[in-house]
């Protein structure tokens, strides 16, 4: 491993209990700068719990999370955002009746300069312009002015959610099953989008996915969670469909655990 590279994200020994249920039992994960890192696991393996920890929705019971080598504690989603970690949720978290411009800046609206801004007046033209620019740089063509998000295609909605994250995210983009609800054409579009974000922006991406073809297409490295623990981390080149499925289902022994990368 390139030891000079401080990982963008390092989660170590993260544990989370909900009542008697131990959703995470000392899971560790490391995302390096500029890589697409896939997080795999069966239902209930702890993927979404880990994501919620990284995006500030939950706080871990034990274990540490480091961003760029600094230990952080996220109490709210806003804390994570301020540390440069943005999350594109599976349901995209868009306000369907609002146009893309308003959505991209939701919660962090641009205000008019001067007194009007102090009174809370929003600068809609600026928000729409910057949203359109951002969408253009990720290569998405989306009518940005007045059409509500509900009228967009699945891929366009994804592009709006990703653009929102890109405007604010600096270090890490977490994407929770971005292609789960999409058809083949839209899936291809979103995967190209992910590659472009990595290549153009040098942003690290943590991709939570169920789809092995997606993972083989865009991921650089893979971590597999099972029963709340990380059972395997490897470069995608060292993986086969069989080895990944084995790690996900537990068919292979834990001998493969944390093989040297």
């Amino acid at each position: 491993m390139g030891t000079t590279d401080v990982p963008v994200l390092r989660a170590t020994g993260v544990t989370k209990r909900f009542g008697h249920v131990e959703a995470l039992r000392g899971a560790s994960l490391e995302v390096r700068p500029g890589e697409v890192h896939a997080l795999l696991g069966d239902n209930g393996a702890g993927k979404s719990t880990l994501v919620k920890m990284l995006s500030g929705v939950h706080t871990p019971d034990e274990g540490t999370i480091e961003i760029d080598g600094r230990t952080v504690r996220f109490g709210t989603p806003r804390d994570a955002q301020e540390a440069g970690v943005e999350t594109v949720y599976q349901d995209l978290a868009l306000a369907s009746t609002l146009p893309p411009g308003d959505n991209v800046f939701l919660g962090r609206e641009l205000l008019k300069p001067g007194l009007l801004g102090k009174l809370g007046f929003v600068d809609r033209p600026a928000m729409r312009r910057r949203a359109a620019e951002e969408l253009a740089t990720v290569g998405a063509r989306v009518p940005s002015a007045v059409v509500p998000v509900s009228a967009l295609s699945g891929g366009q909605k994804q592009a709006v959610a990703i653009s929102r994250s890109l405007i604010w995210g600096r270090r890490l983009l977490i994407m929770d099953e971005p292609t789960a609800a999409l058809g083949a054409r839209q899936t291809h579009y979103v995967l190209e989008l992910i590659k472009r974000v990595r290549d153009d922006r040098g942003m690290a991406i943590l991709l939570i996915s169920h789809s092995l073809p997606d993972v083989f297409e865009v991921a650089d490295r893979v971590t597999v969670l099972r029963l709340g623990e990380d059972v395997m981390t490897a470069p995608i080149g060292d993986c086969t469909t069989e080895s990944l499925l084995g790690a996900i289902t537990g068919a292979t022994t834990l001998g493969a655990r944390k093989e040297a990368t």
Partner: protein
Amino acid sequence: MSTTAESGAQTPAPAQNPAADRKAERAQKRAERYESLTIAGILLLIIVVFSVLAPSGSFLSLDNLRNVALDASTMLILAAGMTFLLIAAGLDLSIGAIVVFTAVVAAKVMAALAGDVTIDVAQLNHPHLFLALLLGIGASLLVGLGWGLVNGLLAVRAKIPAFIATLATAGVILGLAQVWTGGLNVQGAPIQLQEFFGLGSLFGVIPWPVVVAIVVTGILWVILGWTRFGLRTYAIGANPDSAARAGINVGRHLLILYVLMGVLAAIVGVIDLARFNTASVSGHTEDALAAISAVVIGGTSLFGGRGRMSGTVIGALIPAVLLNGFVIMAIDPFWQNVAVGLVLLGAVYVDQLRRRRAQQG
């Protein structure tokens, strides 16, 4: 993996090209304009019909228009607050009860503080008139704020569905007002309140209650359409979870909306007291539903996330104009209920169509 510049050009953007984008945008704008025009057109049509049919211009006379505006003013204030609540996917059925309760508060406080008429009985001069009016209005607004807070805490913090929570508080608030007053209307507020405010006019032209309604609605219109608070109101109504994950404090925002509604109801309570010099305990039972119909007639969706204040203004004017026109033309005024009901049905049907179209899109 192709290089970045190329991949930008090669990746197919799904389903759209620039021409189609512009077309969609134009269609959207046209649909919105058409919609506002439709409801404004209905109002205009009603006005034209009454103007033509009513005897010798009696409908369009300045006096009559003032009457219409006066009748619409309190409903406009309530409907403006309800517009915020419905857009945020909230609801308040207790506003009529709050109007009654706060009118009683204002009347009782004023009657208690104004003092006996000692100096000049003919002029009804109270020794503490100004103080009584000030504290009466202040107490009324505070109590309205308090009831709004109760509604908000029940609907937002206790997570009782707003429909049930405010239906229950409507009973509680109105019941308490009746217990307090023994079910009788409250009199004894200084006559000056009615003389100078309730029946008075700005420059002798615009009745003061109408001025208050215009100012209040105007401020709320600007807030809804141009500020961060307004934008977030739409976002919360469209999807509260998304709004929360975007860092918006959804609970606090909704709480503020319920408090605002309570204060607006109290303003109406004071206006009502001023107009009739009596806090009526038996009125206002249909205020909440009337306000909701005005808002929905104006194109605001009952399901949150969509709506406009301009529509609400028209929606509040239509019932007042209808009632006034029927009275002038000596048609049984009960027909107003029938007509408003039909307009409401039409408005909701249009909203349904639009929602279905949006989901298909």
